């Protein structure tokens, strides 16, 4: 339902993106879990504010693109990490009700709720006894 697009496939938008620009991107780590009603995707995007996050759904491809910003003033002395742009894509199938996707960003974590379309939700069938 939410399959990741990989550069290795060579055909996806991710592959085009990787060859088009010299800028390095880091795929953010994600958790994806499923409930009877929806899929929930959580992505760690440290240093990203709402305005620097670009979430896009086009041709059944969900794109997460973000630019983190450092808070620290002054000159760098020691570096253990680099704040690079985040980029990751997922294929979203028709089984997701794409109109109803919601997103929130809190403490550098993006939470996406992807509700399942009505037809794929498990349904209890009532048996009537006569």
């Amino acid at each position, binding site marked *: 339902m939410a399959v990741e697009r990989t550069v290795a496939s060579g055909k996806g938008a991710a592959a085009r993106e990787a060859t088009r620009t010299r800028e390095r991107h880091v795929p953010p780590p994600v958790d994806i879990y499923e409930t009877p009603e929806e899929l929930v995707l959580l992505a760690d995007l440290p240093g990203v504010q709402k305005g620097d996050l670009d979430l896009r759904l086009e041709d059944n491809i969900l794109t997460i693109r973000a630019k983190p910003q450092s808070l620290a003033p002054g000159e760098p002395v*020691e570096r253990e990490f680099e704040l690079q742009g985040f980029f990751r894509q997922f294929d979203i199938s028709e089984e997701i009700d794409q109109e109803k996707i919601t997103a929130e960003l809190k403490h550098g974590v993006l939470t996406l709720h992807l509700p399942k379309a009505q037809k794929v939700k498990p349904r209890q069938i009532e048996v009537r006894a006569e």
Partner: protein
Amino acid sequence: MARWDPWQEVEELRREIDRAFESVGLRLPASFRAAFLPGQAPREYPLVNLHEDKDALYLEALAPGLDPSTLSLTVLRNSVTIAGEKRRTAAAVKPEAFHREERSAGRFSRRIELPVEVDESRAKAEYKNGLLLVTLPKAPAARPKEIQVQVA
């Protein structure tokens, strides 16, 4: 209790090579440097960057999704200890419901040595967008002094 970890050794070696290149003014292209993966790669958590100006040190830690109420900071002379907890967001979700589980979670504690002594009474910290910024004003003795040159 230190155990010999060959990967640690490799990592140390890699850092030394990076440093050797940087010390002669060659900065390796980004692709050669380890791409950071928050919470995955590091044995030390959180990863920190240290910045400095003439009055203060600024410690920036990469720590998305922390529960701010669990964060604790201890400053002593020239060291800072950051401790806290990154909760699993959905503790109630059954393991089989996960399609992917890449984000780290758990308690952590890390002590960082600072290059100079700081004034612990004026230290402050801010948690914003998943980054923790600790501002550590330098102790008076560690601040650079300007000396006026008397012209005779």
